[in-house]
């Protein structure tokens, strides 16, 4: 069983705070990663994702809580006995060893039979297309090849769990997309539990079976990619996942004539009938209204596939950024601005007025105090 469990895990770095106090890098992390799952830990720099990964590897010791690999608590188990393999951000290949030696180093230390070592290295090399370069040294390889060697070094171990610390961040954009797809295929083929750390939300969305979004050492939400995208648990997750970020507007819940609306000052958005009962306590209360740029449409657009659209809202188009198939629009309503991504066939020019509608089924409401989602 290659499952990994964090149970109330804390990691504090003593003496690293501003006043010499401790910094909490990981705060009460509870997370279960299932066997054979591809779990992505995502978040901005310093959110604790790499620390969490290093704690699984045994390179950091947690200050409190338990970490289980399979059924076994590994709190006091050394890295070599945890049956994990790690791919580092800068690959960490041994520069003075050939590719073959790099890949077989761990196996030699386990006193495996030479034939078995050769078999495993050759199998991994074949899988990753590394056969022609087995005798070369890392310095003679390109970035992409080194990345594959680092993967190969992990694969030959046949571990319970793969740990990957931003393994694609050093590749150029083109190679990154290609390797991303290869990693997904590799995971499906090997079926080994993989925990993948990245700050890139596109990688998180495309690769993970589930995504764990972290911020400030705290797990914000853990769910399948589309669940996170469609139903973010709080404003941080809503703003972090999705490019461009979700638009947020301060507003107040109002009720007039049986219709509940969110009044954002420059515009008001009706609340779906099915959700009105949950908003009973919020009437007259401040809220934060959120809508993704992709859920905003030019009024009358035939691309709108949603169930219910809001009333047209008049905005001014400041700048449009054509991206080919879509255009990113920077709009102003009153003194508020918003971003929309629409199909490139709209005809409004910069500086002109533009009527837009929201897909009401995909709007969000947050509590401004706790920043948690109301719906």
């Amino acid at each position, binding site marked *: 069983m290659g499952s990994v469990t964090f149970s109330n895990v804390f990691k504090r770095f003593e003496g690293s705070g501003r006043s010499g106090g401790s910094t909490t890098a990981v705060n009460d992390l509870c997370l279960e990663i299932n066997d054979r799952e591809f779990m992505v830990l995502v978040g901005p720099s310093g959110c604790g994702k790499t620390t969490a990964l290093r704690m699984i*590897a*045994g*390179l950091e010791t947690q200050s409190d809580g338990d970490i289980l690999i399979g059924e076994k608590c590994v709190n006091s188990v050394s*890295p*070599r006995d945890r049956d*994990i*393999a*790690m791919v*580092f*951000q*800068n*690959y*960490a*290949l*041994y*520069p*003075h060893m050939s590719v073959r030696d*790099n890949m077989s*180093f*761990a196996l030699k*230390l*386990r006193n495996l039979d030479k034939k078995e070592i050769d078999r495993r290295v050759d199998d991994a090399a074949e899988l990753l297309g590394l056969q022609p370069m087995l005798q070369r*040294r*890392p*310095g*003679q*390889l*390109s*970035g*992409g*090849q*080194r990345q594959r060697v680092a993967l190969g*070094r992990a694969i030959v*171990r046949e571990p319970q769990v793969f740990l990957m610390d931003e393994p694609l961040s*050093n590749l*150029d954009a*083109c*190679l990154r997309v290609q390797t991303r797809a290869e990693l997904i295929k590799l995971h499906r083929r090997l079926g080994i539990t993989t925990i993948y750390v990245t700050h890139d939300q596109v990688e998180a969305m495309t690769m993970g079976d589930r995504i764990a979004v972290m911020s400030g050492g705290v797990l914000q939400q853990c769910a399948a990619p589309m669940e996170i995208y469609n139903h973010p648990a709080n404003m941080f997750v809503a703003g972090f996942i999705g490019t461009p970020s979700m638009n947020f507007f301060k507003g107040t819940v109002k009720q007039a004539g049986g219709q509940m609306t969110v009044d954002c000052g420059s515009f008001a958005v009706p609340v779906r009938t099915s959700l009105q009962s949950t908003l009973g306590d919020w009437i007259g209360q401040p809220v934060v209204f959120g809508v993704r740029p992709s859920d905003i449409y030019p009024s009358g657009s035939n691309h709108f596939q949603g169930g219910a659209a809001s009333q047209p809202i008049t905005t001014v188009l400041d700048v449009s950024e054509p991206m080919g198939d879509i255009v990113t629009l920077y709009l102003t309503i009153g003194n508020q601005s918003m971003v929309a991504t629409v199909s490139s066939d709209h005809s409004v020019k910069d500086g002109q007025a533009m009527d837009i509608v929201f897909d009401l089924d995909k709007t969000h409401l947050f509590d401004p105090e706790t920043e948690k989602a109301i719906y």
Partner: protein
Amino acid sequence: MINNSVQMEIGKPAKAPSSMRPTQKSSSAMQKRKSGLSFGEHLLAHSALLLLAIPALLPLLWMVSTSLKSDKQIFATSSKFSLGAFIPHPAVWQNYPVAVHAAPFGMYLENTIFLCVLTVIGAVLSSSLVAYGFARIDFPFKNVFFMLMISTMAIPPQVSMIPVFAMFRWLHWYGTYLPLIVPAFCGAPFYIFLLTQFYRNLPAELSEAARIDGAGEFRIFWQIILPLSKPALATCALFQFLGTWNDFVGPLIYINDPSRYTLAYGLQQLVSTHGGEWASLMADTTLFIVPIIILFFFTQKSFVSGIATTGSKN
């Protein structure tokens, strides 16, 4: 194309290996751009450097020149200085065989090499091990110990000479090579400092990767860190070799048996017994420094070559 450009960027070591350096012809423009010096400025700089090199080279030149002269030639030119006086005419090559047989230099050479080999092994092994501890392992009061270790460099050897001598005599090591060899196995602050700085620059991920691969601390040191530290180790080895080769005071204090003399000490003995024979003394001295010059020619590459930490992206 992508791969090539990536390789060029990643494969760039701290200092480019000779194969990657531009050829002399194509490099002049690059050099000019790099240093920002014109041809005239280069000429001026080189002239100044040559001028400064003369005082350093003059005694060496005088030594080699004297070693090839007869006594008559040596004293004939002593009253007035001229450049022509440096050229022996005729060159008396016979001084060399005479000089070599003036003392049992073969034995001295054997003794010296024996000491050099052991002290180099000792100094490099012990210093690299201690430096590894300072650079890669966390322990309480590490910085205090490091500063303490560094501060011992400031203690002049003359200060500790007598207590150290008393200690070795108490150990009954006087008259043996042990006082010259054993301290080398206890680490030298300068090498420890040098290696600590070097190890600190090696990526921590290498150790972590090895740790996950199943290596213990000593194996990480021996199989990962040491092979990557060859340039720094070579520097330490060369310094130690030179130190032992040139060491005069050590053998003077601790060695009393002529069969254990080293070259430096044996040469000094020659001065006291054959003081007037300048030509053969200078021939011996020339022979004494030749191995050092040869060694430097062979090892200078390890000083200038960069370190191959290219297995990591950064």
